[in-house]
């Protein structure tokens, strides 16, 4: 059985370590914040210019001046800091942010990512995604393994305009957790409960590497 978006977020949350500064992209990555264990302390960065992003405000306490990169009203936390957008990307470029989690429309077996444009159809812009993928040392992509028609989004080469090249090292999908190896190829690490390795094979168009027994993801 394939994972829900919440379960993908839940699995990714296990990759977050105590003391991390983390940037969460829009979509599934935002949900990761809901699954951070109570016993670890992390700081969320919002690239419009905030470190220490807190939860949504209580009803009636929304502040139009306090939003995250998804333009949602949020709150600060003890220890938060505010800065301008140039400094925000300065700390990203200088690799002060430990982990970046973002969505993708396609990734390739050599670590390329496409997530900002569908020519002739969707032109929303790259926002901060190109800066993040070009500089972050540790990026996890949260994405759908296959589209509604069953076609693979893990490809030999991306077909959509690229956001960054050779930058993605880990992918978590509704079907599996995979590493992208430096020499190229998706290495299967874990499979979703009830999903067969054969189904992963037929759902992965890029080079898939399967070694030994593949464990099932643990979500608790």
């Amino acid at each position: 059985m394939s994972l829900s978006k919440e379960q993908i977020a839940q699995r990714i949350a296990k990759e977050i370590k105590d003391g991390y500064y983390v940037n969460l992209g829009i979509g599934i990555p935002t949900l990761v914040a809901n699954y951070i264990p109570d016993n670890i302390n992390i700081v969320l960065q919002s690239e419009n210019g905030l470190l220490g992003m807190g939860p949504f405000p209580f009803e009636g306490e929304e502040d139009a001046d306090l939003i995250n990169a998804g333009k949602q009203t949020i709150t600060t936390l003890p220890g938060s800091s505010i800065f301008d957008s140039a400094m925000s990307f300065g700390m990203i470029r200088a690799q002060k942010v430990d982990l970046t989690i973002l969505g993708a429309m396609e990734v390739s077996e050599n670590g390329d990512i496409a997530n900002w444009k569908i020519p002739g159809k969707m032109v929303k812009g790259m926002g901060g995604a190109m800066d993040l993928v070009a500089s972050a040392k540790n990026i996890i992509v949260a994405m759908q393994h296959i589209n509604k028609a069953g076609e693979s989004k893990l490809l030999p080469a991306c077909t959509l305009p690229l956001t960054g090249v050779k930058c993605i090292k880990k992918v978590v999908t509704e079907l599996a957790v995979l590493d992208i190896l430096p020499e190229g190829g998706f290495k299967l690490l874990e499979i979703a409960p009830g999903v067969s390795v054969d189904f992963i094979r037929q759902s992965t168009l890029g080079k898939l590497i399967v070694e030994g027994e593949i464990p099932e993801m643990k979500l608790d």
Partner: protein
Amino acid sequence: MINKVVSGAEEAIRDISDGSTIMLGGFGLCGIPENCINALVSKKVSDLTCISNNAGVDDFGIGLMLKQRQVKKMISSYVGENAEFERQLLSGELEVELIPQGTLATRCLAAGYGMPAIFTPAGVGTEVAEGKEIRNFNGKDYLMEFAFDADFAIVKAWKGDTAGNLIFRSTSRNFNPVMAMAGKITIAEVEELVEAGTLDPDYIHTPGIYVHRIFQGKNYEKRIEQRTVRKR
């Protein structure tokens, strides 16, 4: 003391004319110079090149200028909240240069710091890199991106004084301080204008040297794009 105060938005934008290049601060609808945008809409100047992270929404912010076809070219990083923008872009009526958000911010910073160009890895290997010089430093490729050259920068601050010093509030700071530094002429509209000497010099975000005109804005709507709350 040099007095930077003007009477209001109309006077502040008096010499913005057809074909001007203007920067507009804000992220989404947060921290946008509402008074000056409304004055530009009333003045109906056209053929503008606008540098702003986003393009407003259909009926607010820069969206109002787009609706009147006042914008010839938009330089932004993300424009996904504006259907009219997407329509003009896909139909070719509007020229658009989409650039990475960090590149946009840092090209402002470079202008304000007097540096002609920056090197950034953002966009290497993508269509953003087309036609740009690439330099390799320590084994990694970087794109050369030029400092912006804008006739005017229009920013919104929380507090300002008659000497042009600015203080921003919360995440409405965003692009405002770096754009304030980058305009040949910088216009600041503020929620509260005070006498010079009132604000603590230690807490100034933008020194008045960067600001040429300042006024206290009125009737701020401060619209929220995505109102998200939790239950008590």
